[in-house]
């Protein structure tokens, strides 16, 4: 029953005091948020910490959720802010020192070498471009949703994504073809909710 409810309806229920609605939201989005943060920070340990912080922020700041507004961009805005805050606090030292993850559990990847190359290439992108690309390509979010999450207009997101894809193509020349880089991904959040390791 609850699974059929929209994120927005669940969030309203949560704001009205139904803690179980939060459980459903967490189950739906925690994987995607962690995957996003892993790709943005390049670190599994940081992604865990930031995912905790992001959902803690959802709880603490639920009074500021604007009823009727889309939940997912709000959640990703929080996740993005958490990552930026970490980046600012550590002045990029940790992020640049951890381009390769130190996961204790190595996921079974389809092509571990390619995954690693892409992960390393993503870490080399400027924050703004990396955030836009990860949300667009890996989380299946529309440019409009990304614009809300990043607090900028849609045009700016498109420019960031375009420049990011161009840079990725340069970094992955010979590995990741231009055609594949530009291949549109289905905007299906649930696919990513279960599988978001970079």
């Amino acid at each position, binding site marked *: 029953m609850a699974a059929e409810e929209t994120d927005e309806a669940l969030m309203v229920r949560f704001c009205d005091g139904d803690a179980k609605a939060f459980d459903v939201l*967490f189950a739906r989005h925690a994987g995607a948020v962690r995957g996003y943060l892993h790709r943005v920070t390049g670190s599994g340990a940081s992604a865990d910490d930031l995912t905790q912080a992001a*959902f*803690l922020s959802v709880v603490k700041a639920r009074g500021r959720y604007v009823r009727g507004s889309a939940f997912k961009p*709000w959640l990703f805005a929080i996740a993005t*802010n958490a990552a930026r*805050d970490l980046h600012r606090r550590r002045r990029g030292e940790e992020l640049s020192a951890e381009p390769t993850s130190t996961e204790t559990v190595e996921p079974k*990847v389809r092509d571990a070498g390619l*995954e690693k190359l892409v992960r390393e290439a993503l870490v080399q992108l400027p924050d703004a471009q990396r955030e836009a690309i990860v949300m667009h390509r890996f989380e299946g979010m529309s440019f409009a949703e990304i614009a809300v999450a990043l607090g900028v207009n849609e045009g700016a997101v498109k420019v960031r994504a375009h420049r990011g894809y161009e840079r990725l193509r340069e970094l992955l020349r010979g590995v990741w073809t231009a055609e594949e880089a530009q291949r549109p991904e289905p905007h299906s959040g649930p696919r990513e909710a279960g599988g978001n390791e*970079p």
Partner: protein
Amino acid sequence: MNAPAPAVDLDRLKGPALDAIERSPRTQPWWLGAAGLAVIVCLAAVAGVGGMSSSTTQHASMLMRNVSTLAWAATMFAAALLAVMPGSRTLRTLLLASVSACFALTLAAASGYEAGAGVKCALIEAAVAALPMFAALGVLTGFAFDATRALAAGVAASAAGMLAVHLHCPDGSIDHQVVFHLAPVFVLALLTLALRRFLPSRTHAP
């Protein structure tokens, strides 16, 4: 490029959030923080204005005095609310732009009368703005860092100080107005921004 299934126990990441729900099961509406900040800012302004003598020699006319005072009071109140209101970045940007109108009104209202007032006005302005500024910083640490929020909070606090000297200071010369009345508004807003950037956020929500 499809990612594999994660081998991460996500449920263990939920603990702090569940603890927070248990500690405060009721949702606190955003306007409580906004109302609290607006009250503190207004009280500071009232204390600043009421605690000192009033002077009319600073202004060219009573009309200009009242209009400019009203503009600063409205800016102060709106800035306190917008600093905390969810979303509203566009409104905050407009508000920050409208501060230049307050500057212009203040200068237009100046009589040109030189009373030899000096740095004391800037010090009074800073003193009146101090409490609201720190209160605003306390509230803003509950938000992710946002420069427009910090600047709006700084404008709200410094406008309280500005109102105090606007109605107290006898000096209506342009130089004095710019250096010791208006520049401190600018400086205090930037100081609020700098302090906010330095302080850690309690939540990352916008």
